[in-house]
């Protein structure tokens, strides 16, 4: 076995895993926050995520055709794209809740779930329709910004592109802001109160519907940010690109303990790292018997094991109080 190679790629794989993990963590927050307040899995969240990526690519493509993409300062461009993706994904999530979930709030639990799956398909095909009319394209490529693609060569086998550092920094900043909002502000305390007991929260003067909308807004905005970062990092998107990362982020949320915000962050990181290591090491360690294409089987097997032995996830499911 080629130990120097195994060791040599380790930092690179670690970095890939961390990036992937933050991506999953950001998406997972949308699932887990909504679950926390409604005990409902928003299956359309994967599309809310990918809409963020489309907002990003549309803005970047417009800037490029206007010929200003490489003359504007890139941090400004990136910040603008992030905020726009967050705003539109957040607004979309709020709208979806109003139209497709709120009228079904008192219906049996399976009904809003089916509605969410319907919204998911609807959004996928809506994006496809819009992009095929607008650009006559299915796959879209994120325009590259030269400065973002600059790579720091650390060693022969390891180099770190600027964009990866930016993705990590942006994800960290967002997770920190979310943490502060949820744990240190009155509105965040109200979100936690509604998650625990809606009727009691309404007796405090909290408008429960507004807090639910706010939860969708925050979760959607995090998803939109993840979408933009996903596009910047991986480059290629299509209307169905949200599905698999969404499913994995949902898994990450379950892994960390669904409804549990720090759990979603941890679950995302664990899953991202598992996947990156499986992708790079499986074939090396098994002498080619299992290739990188088995990474998901490997990651999900470990997930199943964790769920068998820790069914409430790593940090514990947040069990809601009396409804």
């Amino acid at each position, binding site marked *: 076995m080629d130990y120097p190679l195994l060791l040599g790629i380790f930092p690179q794989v670690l970095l890939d895993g961390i990036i992937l993990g933050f991506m999953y963590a950001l998406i997972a927050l949308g699932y887990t926050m909504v679950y926390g307040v409604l005990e409902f899995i928003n299956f359309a969240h994967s599309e809310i995520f990918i809409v963020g990526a489309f907002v990003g690519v549309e803005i970047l493509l417009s800037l490029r055709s206007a010929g200003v993409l490489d003359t504007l300062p890139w941090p400004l461009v990136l910040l603008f794209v992030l905020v726009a993706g967050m705003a539109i994904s957040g607004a979309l999530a709020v709208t979806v809740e109003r139209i497709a979930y709120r009228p079904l709030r008192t219906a049996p639990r399976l009904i809003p779930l089916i509605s969410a799956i319907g919204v998911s398909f609807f959004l996928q095909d809506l994006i496809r329709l819009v992009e095929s009319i607008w650009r006559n394209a299915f796959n879209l490529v994120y325009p590259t910004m030269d400065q973002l693609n600059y790579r720091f060569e650390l060693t022969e086998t390891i180099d770190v592109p600027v964009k990866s550092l930016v993705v990590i920094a942006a994800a960290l900043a967002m997770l920190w802001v979310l943490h502060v909002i949820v744990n240190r502000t*009155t509105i965040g*305390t*109200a979100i*936690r*109160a509604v998650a*625990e*007991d809606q*009727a*009691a*929260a*309404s*007796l*405090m*003067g*909290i*408008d*429960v519907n507004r807090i639910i909308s706010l939860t969708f807004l925050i979760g959607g905005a995090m998803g939109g940010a993840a979408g933009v970062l996903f596009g910047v990092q991986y480059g290629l998107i299509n209307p169905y690109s949200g599905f698999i990362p969404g499913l994995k982020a949902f898994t990450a949320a379950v892994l960390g303990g669904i409804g549990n915000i720090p759990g979603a962050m941890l679950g995302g990181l664990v899953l991202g790292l598992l996947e990156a290591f499986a992708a790079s090491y499986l074939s090396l360690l098994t002498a080619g018997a299992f290739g990188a294409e088995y990474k998901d089987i490997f990651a999900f097997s470990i997930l199943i094991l964790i769920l068998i032995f820790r069914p409430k996830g790593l940090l514990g499911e*947040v069990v809601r*109080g*009396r409804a």
Partner: protein
Amino acid sequence: MLRVDSLDVAYGEIRALKGVGLEVGRGEIVTILGNNGAGKTTTLKTISGLLRPLRGTITLEADPLVGVPPHEIVRRGVAHVPEGRRIFNRLTVRENLMMGAYRRTDGGIAADLERVFTLFPRLKERRTQVAGTLSGGEQQMLAIARALMANPRLLLLDEPSMGLAPVLVEQIFHAIADINGQGMTILLVEQNAAMALSIAHRGYVLETGSVALAGTAAELSGNADVRRAYLGE
């Protein structure tokens, strides 16, 4: 201050209240007595907006409350301490209290925090503790304190003695009398009729969703039916 007239409330097919009427004057403690399932909790939930009546009116100082959502009713000055306390177990004591003051924009929040800490010094000691780890008595104190943080005109209390040891019941009722002494109007639902009548000015007896009897606390304490059915004689 509060006036309830011919209130009908149902849970689907189950009629819980039939023509309930009652009144609470400013500065009074009025108690609602009744057996399990008589409709006491239903009455309070309807006043605070958690339930919508089929029929009837509720007015707070001439202001109609029927159809107003609960979070808005709080803002108009009605605070409801629900049955079973319903404190937020995962929030700290202080966070629970701040949720009580959620809708307030006046400058009196800090002063009211001090006021409830003076009323319940135990809560001050435990203000950074997660509320789910409080004892039953402390949780009841927190539930009452949290309602007071809304700076209400009218306080609705649903069985504050539930599940508490006699000495704690004494303490809680003492606090309720204190709060009333400072001018708060209180509508008190209780199964512990003796305790309730000892601090109330007036009372109503609910039986299967209707008011069976009404009178001053002294009248009710002296009534033979009340003594037999609720005071264990």
